[in-house]
């Protein structure tokens, strides 16, 4: 499943480590989510969407 996490993070000038610290996960996990190797749980997906002040559907392409 494709997602916009890398683009949203880049827009805010955050590193993967910064985002990981904000979400309470490791830098590796942020990288895995961005590259699509790891699909986050629903609570983490919602946390990511809220962090970027958007919706889960806007962050994650559920049709992909």
């Amino acid at each position, binding site marked *: 499943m494709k997602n916009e996490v890398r683009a949203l993070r880049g827009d805010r000038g955050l590193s993967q480590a910064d985002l990981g610290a904000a979400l309470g*996960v*490791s830098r*590796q996990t942020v990288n895995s989510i961005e590259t699509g190797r790891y699909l986050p749980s629903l609570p983490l997906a919602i*946390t990511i969407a809220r962090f970027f002040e958007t919706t889960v559907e806007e962050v994650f392409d559920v049709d992909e």
Partner: protein
Amino acid sequence: MSTNSKPWYCGRWAVPATAVLAGVAYLVVGLVGGQRGFALGGFVTMLVVAAGYVLAGRYSETMKGLLDREDERINALDRDATVVMGGVLMVAILALGLIEIARGDDGSPYFELAAVGAVAYLGALLWMRWRR
């Protein structure tokens, strides 16, 4: 919103403390059984393992995640690796039991261990079925 539910037994020091407790158990049973080499060797080895966990947790994100249990992806990796370990262990136990049968023995203790594994699996399945 929490992204994981951390049980009380999954604190940061749970794994090192378990290693130390295992070392103490080795020490006690070794001394009780009159095997000082096993007692001291086992105790020191498990202390080194506990220290290794703590030190590795400072340099490795994965090890840190395994210790503090706060990263859902690392928790999932740990869970999946445990499933693989359980599967490999069951295959090995059954294979060793069959070898014992082929040698003319009764397959003990391997088939008893396999039975414990089967009961544990069914118990866990029923418990989770009831909870989820």
